[in-house]
């Protein structure tokens, strides 16, 4: 018992920097002895850092042959090493699961011996869990870049969700910080997973980004060359043959924020292209936490850029659920998000000529673009309009945040904001500052940003002040 206690400690601590813990996207009744999955996902606990715990998130081993600069488990660092036995891990998962501690397993691994060796060990553990224990709960498996495509497919047949970490927002930083990983070895399995999902008519895509589009029609998908009727038929046959589902919750990835010099625009453009190319369910961001003294990385005393991570997630939501594109959020002059305002407000202020929007007439898509209105309140607005016009007092009860929305709407023709529609005036009013005390940083930043003026450099240690519900 002592032994497994130590192992679990080491292998959980080395897995904790993987962000994703979601258990959504897969809906399955219990077809075995134990377990099911719920479409919306279920969180089971929240750790002291406020992140949810829903999966037993561990590395299979932290014995790594790679030496990535940003990683706690890199070969050159002196840490305790441990590995699970496949049976031992399966048993632990089941014992945790039946006590309802967890929703399933998130299995990642350092690269031990070789990518294929590691992938085989992961597959073995998943098979014990699925077959010997008849487990129908959630499994998220990490794909090791460079593993044999056949192994990727077999792991996909056991797992609900797959992920391969892109690690860095650009190829340049990847080369610099993870010299043994190549973009090719990362993108190849991503493409394989998407192709397999299309073959099985099971690709769903992120959020509402491709709503109404048939992603599994090959003609709509530029990943695949046009096909003939003959190949289509052969694919149909294959579909019927395979009863097992392949990664029904799709794939995700994650990148580290703030370890390399990218601007927010590059980060969001990379995310957007991952959504468009691979239709992945999510791109996660992980604020870099200084763990090594490499000269290539931020120094060991810098605070993790949590405020920046938060704003990037907000921007990511705009991509996936609100119909925005990265090009709308940034341009060459404004390559960073505003630390003090949410990205939708920033966009609205830059496009002030589109406002105010009339709540009682605008389309659903336009309402979604109003700051302070989320998907739920937008849906409520559209629903109530069918039976009764919306009054300004109704909006608060519908969940609209009027503090932000009031500058951008009219309700039956009446405007409730301030006298001026000048972006600077609205911005100051929103932040509660008088016109005479404008924050000078933004005046400078709008001209300096492209020359390396990163607004996040100035706010790194004041995360709490920045996010106050704006």
């Amino acid at each position, binding site marked *: 018992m002592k032994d497994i206690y130590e192992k679990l400690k080491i292998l959980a601590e080395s897995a904790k920097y993987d962000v994703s813990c979601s258990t959504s996207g897969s809906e399955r009744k219990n077809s075995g002895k*134990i377990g*099911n999955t719920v479409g919306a996902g279920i969180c089971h606990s929240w750790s002291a850092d406020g992140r949810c715990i829903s999966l037993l998130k561990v590395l299979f081993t932290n014995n790594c042959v790679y030496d990535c600069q940003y990683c706690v488990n890199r070969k050159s660092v002196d840490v305790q090493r441990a590995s699970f036995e496949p049976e031992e891990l399966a048993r632990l998962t089941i014992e945790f699961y039946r006590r309802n501690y967890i929703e399933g397993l998130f299995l990642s691994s350092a690269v031990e011996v070789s990518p294929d060796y590691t992938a085989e060990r992961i597959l073995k553990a998943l098979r014990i869990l699925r077959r010997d224990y008849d487990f129908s709960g959630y499994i998220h498996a990490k794909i090791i870049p460079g593993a044999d495509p056949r192994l990727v497919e077999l792991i996909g047949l056991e797992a609900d969700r797959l992920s391969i970490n892109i690690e860095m927002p650009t190829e340049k930083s990847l080369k610099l910080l993870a010299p043994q990983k190549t973009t090719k070895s990362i993108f190849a399995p991503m493409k394989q997973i998407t192709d397999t999902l299309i073959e099985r008519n099971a690709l769903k895509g992120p959020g509402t980004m491709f709503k109404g589009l048939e992603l599994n029609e090959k003609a709509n998908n530029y990943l695949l060359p046009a096909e003939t009727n003959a190949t289509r038929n052969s694919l149909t046959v294959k579909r019927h043959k395979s009863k097992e589902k392949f990664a029904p919750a799709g794939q995700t990835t994650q990148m580290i924020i703030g370890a390399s010099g990218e601007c927010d625009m590059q980060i969001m453009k990379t995310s957007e292209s991952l959504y468009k190319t691979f239709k992945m369910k999510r791109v996660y961001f992980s604020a870099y936490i200084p763990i090594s003294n490499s000269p290539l990385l931020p120094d060991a005393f810098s605070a993790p850029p949590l405020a920046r991570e938060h704003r990037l997630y907000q921007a990511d939501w705009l991509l996936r659920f609100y119909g925005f594109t990265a090009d709308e959020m940034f341009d060459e002059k404004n390559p960073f998000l505003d630390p003090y305002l949410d990205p939708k407000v920033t966009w609205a202020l830059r496009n002030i000529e589109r406002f105010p929007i009339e709540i009682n007439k605008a389309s659903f898509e336009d309402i979604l673009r109003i700051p302070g209105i989320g998907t739920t309140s937008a849906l409520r607005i559209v629903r109530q309009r069918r039976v009764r016009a919306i009054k300004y007092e109704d909006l608060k009860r519908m969940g609209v945040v009027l503090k932000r929305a009031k500058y951008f709407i009219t309700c039956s023709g009446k405007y409730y904001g301030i006298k001026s529609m000048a972006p600077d005036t609205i911005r100051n009013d929103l932040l509660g500052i008088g016109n005479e005390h404008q924050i000078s940083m933004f005046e400078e930043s709008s001209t300096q940003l492209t020359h390396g003026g990163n607004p996040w450099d100035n706010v790194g240690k004041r995360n709490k002040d920045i996010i106050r519900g704006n």
Partner: protein
Amino acid sequence: MTEYIYDATFEGFLCCVHAHYYSGKASNILPAEDCLQASLLRTVEIKTDEEKADIVYRAIEQKISPFDLRRVYRIFLSGEKGKEMQLLEYIRLGFIKGKSISSYHGNPTVRNAELLEKKVTMEAHRLNGLIRFSVLEGEVLYARIEPDNNVLELLVPHFADRFKSSPFIIHDLRRKRALIAESGQWYISNFAIEDVECFAETEIEYRQLWKNYFDSIAIKERTNPRCQKNFMPVRYWKHLTEMQ
């Protein structure tokens, strides 16, 4: 105006709605257990009558909608005082507006109903994750909860499917009732057993392992207790293995 007292069952409540329409407007509706002092108002005890309950049940289903019937039932499971009058208001508005009632999101009565219902369904959803079973001798799973709302029934579909091959008991200490299930069959009944301490041999070890995991997975540099408490309110900690 009359104050109605009922037996705290859903059918009893529906009979109060019936009485409101046919015997005299309700100024208040109270479950018997809450009505210790004699009120100055005219107080009438409503006897639960299946036929009357059925009439109201069908009226809500047909004249408003099945969606709103489900909503009414879920709100009835709420532990909030005064839910009965809020429900009556919603039902009255529903008989006027018909099936479109739930679209009036800006109406205060509808908004209140939405919020009450959300509290109930939210707690049930939360408990799907926050319930902690202990393995007892004989491989029975046993969990204790003290929820704000009477959510036992809402937990059935999820847990009965998930743990269909092992017997389990979810014990609501506050209401002294338990959900008891085995191989997909289940029932809810009064449950008075105070001490269930016949744990399986390895139970304590797995609790330790879980606590150990819980502590190891947090990133110290990101410590954020407020965020943790927002998602996992302190009132649930009492029965959470990892927070002991």
